[in-house]
């Protein structure tokens, strides 16, 4: 239906600072997500990765700094407006809604569809047509993410890994230009991890979107990411390709403590 042909816009984060009652969660953090790239955000627990995601998706307003997606300024927009501009995210702890996989994916189509209360109450033809079209696209995305067999199954009955995949597919249903993945493989076993990596690859190849990734699994980050930004205590301590970051002394110190500089961070 709506497969984008142009490259996604560039996501630019400039000097974003977030304070929670005296605690500085993000301290003048800047990075740029190049169109169509996979950008990983790593750091120890409490480094500010999730806060950064919350700023990007509009759930948290920064004290200073700006977030831009192409020409649009996202900094002061409400979450649903940001979603409509093509920014989708998943959550660290799974947040699905009651109903089948289809219901969840159709929620992802919300911003792309129009029909309101009256049209649906009266079951107007246009509302039904819209619903049918979006359901077709949701089914395609379910196939792409390996959920086709579960399409009409209530989400509560699915395994943990499948539920994480539902969240992922739901975000894709937004037809995002930037996809924010918050720990997409946390709690998954090796086979599920491999499958998720495969899906991220496929999605990137087929839909041509940018991905921002928060993940603790270093092996996965090194394999997937084009660029890595490392945060510690809310500050950006390193930035570069996976190989550059891997050998950065600051990063090793943050992850392993002082005096363990020889060890491989992975």
């Amino acid at each position, binding site marked *: 239906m709506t497969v984008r042909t142009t490259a996604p816009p560039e996501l630019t984060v400039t000097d974003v600072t977030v304070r929670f009652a005296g605690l500085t969660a993000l301290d003048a953090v800047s990075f740029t997500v190049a169109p169509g790239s996979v950008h990983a955000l790593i750091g120890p627990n409490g480094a500010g990765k999730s806060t950064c995601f919350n700023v990007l998706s509009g759930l948290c307003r920064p004290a200073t700094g700006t977030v831009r997606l192409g020409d649009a300024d996202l900094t002061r927009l409400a979450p649903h407006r940001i*979603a409509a501009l093509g920014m989708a995210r998943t959550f660290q702890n799974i947040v699905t809604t009651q109903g089948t996989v289809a219901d969840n994916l159709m929620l992802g189509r919300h911003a792309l569809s129009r029909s309101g209360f009256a049209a*649906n109450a009266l079951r107007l033809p246009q509302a039904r047509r819209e619903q049918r079209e979006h359901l077709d696209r949701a089914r395609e995305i379910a196939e792409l993410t390996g959920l086709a067999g579960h399409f009409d199954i209530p989400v509560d009955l699915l395994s943990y890994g499948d539920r994480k995949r539902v969240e992922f597919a739901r975000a894709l249903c937004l037809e995002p230009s930037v996809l924010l993945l918050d720990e997409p493989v946390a709690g998954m076993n090796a086979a599920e991890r491999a499958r998720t990596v495969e899906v991220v690859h496929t999605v990137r190849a087929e839909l041509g979107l940018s991905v921002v990734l928060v993940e603790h699994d270093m092996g996965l980050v090194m394999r997937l990411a084009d660029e890595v930004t490392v945060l510690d205590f809310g500050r950006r301590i390193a930035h570069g390709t996976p190989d550059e970051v891997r050998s950065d002394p600051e990063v090793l110190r943050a992850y392993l403590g002082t005096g363990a500089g020889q060890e491989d961070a992975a």
Partner: protein
Amino acid sequence: MSERLPRARAIRMGRALAVVTVLCALPFYLDAFWLRIGLFSMAAAVGAVGLGLLSGTAGQLSLGHAFFLAVGAYGYVWLAGEPGPGLPTAVAAVLAVLLAGAAGGLFSPVAGRVRGIYLGVATLALVFLGHHVLLTADSVTGGFNGRSVPPLEVGGFSFSTDSELTLLGVPFGAEERLWYLGLGLFAVTWFTARGILRGRPGRALVALRDSETAAAVMGVNVSRYRSAAFVVSSMYAGLAGVLLALSFRRVVPDYFGLVLSVDYLAMIVIGGLGSVAGATAGAVFVTALPLLMTRYADQLPLVAAPGTTDGTIGPTEAARYLYGAAIVLILLFTPDGLHGLARRLRARLRSRRAAPPPSGTTAPSQPPTSAARAKEPTP
């Protein structure tokens, strides 16, 4: 699969048709007492569907449903009656529904900001406020004694006993006529509410209940949908209020108190949150059961006949006890309400129907696991 779907659909259509036929035939066989129970149940069902949408689907606790019912009922009476603009009754009915929706809309700045139990308390204030206004604004509401309700007239047909009408040898009084009005309005409610729930707004409301954050990042305008839920729910309440007013033929302030709000909450909880069928079942249960029990309680053992005072419990008390016990039993044994109970019974029936194994033809049947397991040593 392609063969089974149309068949399943045909069965469903056939069943629906049978239900509609029976409901339409009932006035020819039942007396006014039963028809009135049915009428109250239908009105309650309309209101319960509205509250179900708000509290069950969108997860916003409302104790103010009685207020919106009152707006519908009194709105109709005032708009159609004297003193009042004296509009044609059909117009007044439509306007009363819109008025209730507008009242819900006026409340939406509060509804958009307050959540959970706090919203419940905020809506509670509406009930007290409404009750006070109903008692004091004499010129509009008739004060403590209330007002009589002008009968609805659509295209020269009056839903009252003013004109004589006999159909197939059955005299059609107000109850019989209103029965069909109630059926029609309930059908509209059923159709529209299910359309909303299965469509885009329904999914947004469910998301609102399960996680506002998830709803927001998926593109749902949270505050707008929170208030929309209130407006739509109030419109159903307004419709129910109009129907109740027509059935009672007199509206009094004391009816629209906190107890009524609690009754509606009980309906949607007993029926099962989040479904139209559940809200309907709960509405019938909560409305009809006390009336039936009061009527038939004197036939139970240990219950005195009405009017006698020989120390045993009277029929009204017995009805209350039984009603309370029924609610407790339902909540204990089917926490997902009558709707969940029906779903489980249906699933069991289906599996039993699918179960009879024509021995040998199906896959190797499972060994009697219970017996085999019992012999295994426990680790």
